[in-house]
């Protein structure tokens, strides 16, 4: 549990972060989104005391972070940055084992943990363990960065635009893997990004920042349905907002049971999103899809009218 209440940071007279309050419950994924210079990275760095906050309280598991020794605090918080920050003179294995060694784990424990993490992140130990960072591709290096952050099994993970420097395909792949990892590990994550799609895809809780202040926060769906001002709306993609919202809703949550009519030709797995369903309708020139389960067995159907009605219903719900 991370709690920020009325936190500010001033550099000289300028406020980089201005009176923000925010709660990240244990095991939740919180994304800070905003344009460059909006104070989102500063907010992140205040949590592990890379930057000391000027005012307000930051509370970690019920205790103000000022009460922790900064070095010990940082050892129990994982941290991932955009350009990985891997030590170029250390092998991959040694980089990953850094924090456990700092915590004076025994050599065999460290070795075991490194192997475990490399396996978890899909980096075969035999192939990558002895490589140096400059021998890795961008995606591989960032996996090592994530593994290093997870090494001492911290409860909290701070990620500062971790996928910002990667090409779109690698980025998407790593996003998927991170989502899977989070579903397994349930870390409390604070994730900084300027890519709204990334945030919508990964976050449980979305915080939009501008000029050091929080403009709006809430669940991704709530923000999409009800942006508080034009800035948030433009961040959420303006006209594309409807599609983004559809991307967050799964087909199987909105399908209807099979009707008396003949099943539609096009089939869509229930775990796909409404956005993918819409795309499929456009592609196949139809207004009905058959929903199938993982064994490709029909379990229901989804019509265009249904999708549009659902969107209206959701809007109506949130307004109440």
């Amino acid at each position, binding site marked *: 549990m991370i709690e920020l209440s009325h936190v500010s940071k001033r550099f000289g007279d300028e406020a980089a972060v201005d009176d923000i309050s925010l709660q990240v419950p244990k095991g939740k994924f919180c994304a800070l989104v905003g344009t460059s210079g909006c104070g989102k990275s500063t907010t992140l760095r205040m949590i*592990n005391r*890379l930057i000391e906050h000027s005012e307000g309280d930051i509370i970690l598991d019920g205790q103000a972070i000022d009460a922790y020794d900064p*070095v*010990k*605090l*940082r*050892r*129990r*918080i994982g*941290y991932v*940055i*955009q*350009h*990985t*920050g*891997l*030590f*170029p*003179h*250390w*092998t991959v294995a040694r980089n990953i084992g*850094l*924090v456990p060694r*700092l915590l004076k784990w025994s050599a065999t424990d460290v070795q075991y943990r490194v192997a475990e993490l490399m396996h978890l992140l899909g980096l075969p130990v035999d192939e990558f363990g*002895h490589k*140096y*960072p*400059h021998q890795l591709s961008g995606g591989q290096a960032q996996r090592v960065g994530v593994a*290093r952050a997870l090494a001492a099994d911290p409860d909290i993970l*701070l990620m500062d635009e971790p996928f910002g420097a990667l090409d779109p395909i690698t980025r998407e792949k790593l996003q998927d893997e991170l989502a899977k990892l989070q579903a397994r590990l349930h870390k409390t994550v604070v994730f900084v990004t300027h890519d709204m799609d990334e945030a919508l895809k990964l976050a449980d809780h979305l915080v939009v920042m501008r000029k050091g202040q929080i403009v709006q926060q809430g669940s991704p769906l709530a923000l999409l349905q009800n942006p508080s001002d034009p800035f948030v709306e433009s961040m959420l993609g303006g006209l594309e907002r409807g599609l983004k919202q559809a991307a967050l809703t799964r087909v199987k949550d909105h399908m209807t049971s099979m009707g008396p009519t003949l099943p539609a030709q096009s089939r869509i797995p229930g775990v796909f999103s409404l956005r993918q369903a819409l795309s499929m309708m456009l592609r196949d020139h139809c207004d009905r899809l058959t929903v199938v389960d993982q064994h490709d067995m029909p379990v229901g159907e989804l019509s265009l009218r249904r999708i549009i009605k659902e969107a209206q219903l959701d809007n109506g719900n949130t307004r109440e």
Partner: protein
Amino acid sequence: METRVNNSLSVAQPHTKAPQWLWPLMWGALLLGSVTVMSAAEPLFRWIEPDARQVIYERTELYVLLGRHLFVVGIAAVVTIIVGVAAGIAVTRRWGSDFLPLVAQLASLGQTFPPVAVLALAVPVLGFGTLPIIVALMLYGLLPIVRNTLAGLQGVEDDIKTAAHAMGMTPRQILRQVELPLAAPVILAGIRTSVTINIATAALGATVGASNLGDPIISGIVNGNMAYVAQGALTIALLALTIDSLFEVLQRQLRTCFSAS
């Protein structure tokens, strides 16, 4: 710090071994040969200086002069390395950062101060002999080391330092395990410049009464005996080449540790 660097070295390159030691060994052997059996080359020097009464410098054995030369350069090098690296580290820490602009500015002066002038200014304070030349060499050799230490430490990427910090390394651990190993090649290059230049500069000590390999040169100039000058010059040049090639090997070892990306 050195041991750590060597540790990572042994992992990095088990394959390169023999050929890189070839040059220092060769120059070293030539150097030893020249200081021990210079007299064997008497016919050659006789050809240079046919009229002189004596063509081989014999006032002091060359290897004794070589020892003194090495002593002077060595003392100066040890002191400058310790002081220079320490100063470079100090001003890049947060508590010393007030001094950073000034020290960086001074270090950029590099070798502006002419060694002769520094030597001349040291003599009134320290008297004649070995001390003034050691002091002059220290002053002359200090700035390149400070400059390169600064460049090396500042060249470590901010991302890497931030990451080290965020992983919970103490400032001391960051310095010893991250910053110094990464800056080592640049610092070593500074030390190489400083020491190589000082080997040649130390010969000036002979003008203020410090006995070293500059002796045959001065005595040759004074007596118009080119053979003496050549013997002194040859020995110093061989010494410089030996030390320089040793540094070359050291630098290459550091570089293979991780290719500078």
